[in-house]
Structure formats: structure tokens, C-alpha cells
């Protein structure tokens, strides 16, 4: 059941089910600085929706407005059917939050952290026990429930935060850069739990990331830059929209090759990290023509568009290359 929903969502431009998150014209200004400059989106029930963009793009500010933590300067948004300004408590009861920074109490045990959460969220007392068992089990921390959280590794802490975010069975789980600062193994582990979670609970996951591979996992992603959504669709549609493959050619004489490529084939060349690169609509058909030029070619490499290319196409800058703006941690 759940799978078919995701599949239908994956294909469409708009959510297949009724939206659980709706935003229109969201704006946030801090003094003279406009952090978010008009964001519209609709996220369907059960979707894994991603916000992709560099630090400082307005991702976190947008997520904080949706979570009622920051009051919008303009526009409106509803989450789980409640207005984020006028019905803050109702929104909060229906969402789970995992932040970039840990918000656990290291001096309490895993279980005590969950107990605290159950009480401040006013969970039905009869459900606390079974729900605690269920979420600890889900993130693989059932055997560490009595251990002090300060003895946990970074990955375990993040998993516990996710478990806590899920404790009160929220409709939407917000994950703000959930894998930042984690080692590759912990990142992979965390994603296994997110996948399992989506299989087991009927929940919408809204995440921000600046990792391409994480964006690839989303049903739909919004490319965010400079406080705006540059593009919003499924990863495959977005990549198809780029319209060109990247061909990298290594020759004995790149300067001569560059001249020939421009004069004989009429293509623009660039040097990406010192490698001669051509962007063409169909890379595989381009390669044979390359060899007709009579160059001494050491190697050729054709790549399909990546989300990074999508990002470049929509924002004019590259996300993956170099340290991101703001450079956290």
C-alpha cells in the first residue's frame, strides 16, 4: 500500500495525496536581510521530501517556520492541517523534529530522555511504555535504554533523536541535515532506519541536506538557493531537465584538442579541474565523432547529469565543489 503511494508520487509533479505540508509565499526577513524570499510548496502524505541547497540558502529558516519555531515575516503555511502561526501548539503536537545540533540530555539515560519527551508532549500514559519500546527497537538502541546518553557515539545520539522525534507518532518528521557530522557508516545506518521507518509508519519525512546522494533518495526535491526554490520535482525529472551529458576527454595535447573540438564539432569546451570537458545532449553518440578528429586520446568518460548539474543549471553555482558557504563544523 505504502509503496504504491510513493511510486505514484515519484512520477508526478504534484503530490498524489492531499498535502500534509502547504506553504505559500513564505518570507522571512531579519532586519535588512531576506533569508527566505517567497517559498511555495505542497508535500503529500507519505512523501520523502528533500530541501537541497548550500548552507545559508534558507533551508533551515524555512524548516523552522514550518515547525513554528520562527514566525514568518510574510506568507502562510499549514502543517498537518494547522496554521503555523495561529495554531502553533497543534502543529507541534503533530510533528517530530531532529536538529543539526544534539538536543539530548547527556546526563540522562536514553529512556529518561524519552520519558521527558512523552511528558512534555502530553502523551497518553498508557501508550508511553509500548511506544518507547517500539522506537528504541526501531533505531536499534533497545539494549542501551538504561545507558547515559553522554556515553553514546554521534551516530547513536542521532538515532536516539530520531526515535524521540517519532515517540509521539507525529504526522511529519522534520530532519534538518540529519547526517551532518556523521561518519559514512553512521550515515548509511541512519538511512536504513529512515527507510525502515517509512515502511513501518505512515509518516511524511521532510529533510534538508546538502548531500547529493541523500537528495537522490527523496521522492521529490526542491532546489533551494538564495531564499528561493529554483526547481521542484522528482530527482529523475530534474536530471532529465538538464538536457546534456558531460564528456571528459584526456588527450596528449589538450590545447590542440580544444581548438579542434570548437572548429570542427562546434562545441564549447571547459576545463573542469584541468580536464577538458564538453557538455552535449547525447554523450554516447558524441564519442565516435570525437575519435574522427584524429586526436591522440588517452581516455574518455561520459557521465549522465547529476543533481549537482541540476543545481548548477538552476543556480549558476556548484553545490558539491569546494567547501560550502558558511562552512559549519
Amino acid at each position, binding site marked *: *500500500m505504502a509503496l504504491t503511494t510513493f511510486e505514484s508520487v515519484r512520477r508526478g509533479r504534484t503530490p498524489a495525496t492531499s498535502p500534509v505540508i502547504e506553504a505559500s509565499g513564505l518570507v522571512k526577513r531579519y532586519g535588512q536581510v531576506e533569508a527566505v524570499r517567497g517559498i511555495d510548496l505542497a508535500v503529500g*502524505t507519505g512523501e520523502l521530501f528533500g530541501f537541497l541547497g548550500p548552507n545559508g540558502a534558507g533551508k533551515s529558516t524555512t524548516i523552522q517556520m514550518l*515547525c513554528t*519555531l*520562527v514566525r514568518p515575516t510574510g506568507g502562510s503555511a499549514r502543517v498537518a492541517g494547522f496554521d503555523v502561526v495561529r495554531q*502553533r*501548539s*497543534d502543529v*507541534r*503536537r*503533530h510533528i517530530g*523534529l531532529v*536538529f543539526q*545540533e*544534539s*538536543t*539530548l*540530555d*547527556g*546526563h*540522562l539515560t536514553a529512556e*529518561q530522555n524519552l*520519558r*521527558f*519527551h512523552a*511528558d*512534555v*508532549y*502530553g*502523551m*497518553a*500514559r498508557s*501508550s508511553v511504555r509500548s*511506544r518507547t519500546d517500539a522506537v528504541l527497537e526501531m533505531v536499534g538502541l533497545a539494549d542501551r535504554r538504561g545507558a547515559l546518553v553522554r556515553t553514546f557515539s554521534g551516530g547513536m545520539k542521532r538515532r536516539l533523536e530520531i526515535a*524521540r522525534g517519532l*515517540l*509521539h*507518532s*507525529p*504526522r511529519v518528521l522534520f530532519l534538518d541535515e540529519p547526517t551532518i557530522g556523521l561518519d559514512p557508516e553512521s550515515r548509511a545506518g541512519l538511512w536504513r532506519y529512515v527507510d525502515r521507518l517509512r515502511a513501518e*509508519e*505512515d*509518516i511524511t519525512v521532510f529533510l534538508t541536506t546538502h548531500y547529493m546522494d541523500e537528495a537522490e533518495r527523496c521522492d521529490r526535491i526542491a532546489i533551494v538557493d538564495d531564499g528561493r526554490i529554483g526547481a521542484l520535482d522528482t530527482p529523475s525529472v530534474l536530471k532529465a531537465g538538464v538536457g546534456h551529458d558531460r564528456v571528459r576527454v584526456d588527450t596528449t595535447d589538450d590545447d590542440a584538442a580544444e581548438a579542434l573540438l570548437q572548429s570542427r564539432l562546434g562545441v564549447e569546451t571547459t576545463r573542469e579541474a584541468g580536464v577538458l570537458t564538453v557538455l552535449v545532449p547525447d554523450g554516447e553518440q558524441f564519442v565516435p565523432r570525437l575519435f574522427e578528429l584524429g586526436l591522440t586520446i588517452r581516455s574518455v568518460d561520459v557521465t549522465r547529469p547529476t543533481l549537482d548539474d541540476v543545481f548548477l543549471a538552476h543556480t549558476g553555482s556548484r553545490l558539491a565543489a569546494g567547501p560550502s558557504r558558511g562552512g559549519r563544523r
Partner: protein
Amino acid sequence: MTAPVLVADRGLRHELRAAGVVWQRDLIRFRTDRGRIVSSFVQPLLFLFVLGKGLGASIGEATFGGADYSTFLFPGVLASSVMFTAVFSAISIVWDREQGFLREMLVAPISRTSIVLGKCLGGATVATLQALVLLALAGLVGVPYAPLMLVGAIGLLLLIAFAITAFGLLLAVRVQQIQTVMPRVQLLLTPLMFLSGAFFPLSSAVPGWLHALTLANPLSYGVDVLRRLVLAHTGGDGDATALRWGEQVVPIWVDVAMVAGAGVALLALAAWLFSRTD
């Protein structure tokens, strides 16, 4: 199809439950932090035995309503010890902010007032629990272990600790870093302690300005009622060293009301300030 949101409690019941767990967390953390318990006793013991016995040896008992100086000092030291531990419990809210845990409370569907109330009750309880060890030393300064006096003293210490925690929270709720709040607390707390009548009686020999400042300090009333309770059980003349408005001895209910009123007002102010903070 959609799993029910497991949120049951709403309204006041929910807010009280939230305040309750904030309080409980402070107790759990206190229990696991034994270093704090031991280190908080050095200063009160110095006051009680070094100042009390040393200075007491050179001052006549007449000054203190017939009581030994260390007996006179005992309630003052209890109160001042509670002042310090309570205020440090209060500023743990800045630690919570620095460590990130405060955010877990701030994003929950509860009011800021519940958080502040829970913190205040937590600080008051922790400070009073620490003072119990000091209270157990009563016999060493000639104070009998009278059950009624002990119960009364614990109640009054709770009240004083509550007011001081509220004061500490007022200083701390908007502060981002612990380094910022520490000097402020030191700067304000030391004068509050010295101007509370904890160490000397407000006899006619005390300069007028000092007398006025002491009367303006709500803590003086807490120290006063605690001392009258203790001295009443040692056979001394409690009224001789009691706080006076002019010639009139301040009634005990006024003492209690002054501390309670100050506590509630400070707490309300802290909650208001906290709710206006991001």
C-alpha cells in the same frame, strides 16, 4: 490508515505535567552529581564554625538575644547556603541552552511558563535537599532537633530557595552563555546575602542606610522568620534580634508573605521575559 497522534493531555493538566517532568529532571541530575553536593558545603561550614565560633568568642551573648553567636548565625548560614545553591540551580538553564537540551523544551507544545515553573521548583527542591545536611548539624551549634522546628525550617528554606531560584531564572532566561551570567549572579548575590541580616542583628547601633537597605531586601524577611523559629527552640529571645519596622516587630505572616510575594513576582517576570525570547 494514519496512525493516531499519541498526544492525550491538553490544557492546564498537560502544562502541570510538563512542569513536573522539568522538576523531576533537575532532581535526577542532582542525584547523579555528587561533586556538587560536597563542594557546596565548604562555604557554609566556614561561616558557621570559623566565623561563628571565632567571632562569637569575642562578642557577648547579649548582642544576640542571649544566644551564642554560632546559634544566632545558624539560620543565617542555612539561608545563605540555600541562596547560593538555588541560584546556581537556576542558571543551569543557561547550561541547558548551551548543551542544546533547552531546545527540546522550547519546541514542545507547552508554554514557557511551565518550563520556568518546573525549573524553579527543581532549583528550590535541590537547594533545600542540600541544606538538609547542614540542618543536620544543628546540634553542634546548640540547636535542638525539635521535629516541629525542623519541619518549619524545611518549609521556610523551600520558600526562600523558591524566591532565589526565581531571581536566578530572571537573570538567566535570556542569556546564551554561562560566562555571561556567572559574573552577574556573583555581583548581585553577594550584596543580597550580606544585606539579609544573615550575619548580624539589626540593632540600633547599625547605621541607618544599612538598616534601610536590609529592610528593602525581601530575603531579610526570610532570614528573620527562620531565625525566630530556631531561636524560639533554643530558649533565646527571638524578638530581641527580630526585624523591626520602626519600633514594631515585623509579624511572622508578613515575613512569609514578603518572601512568597517576591518569589511569585520574580517568577512571573522571568516567565514573561522568557516567553519574549527566541
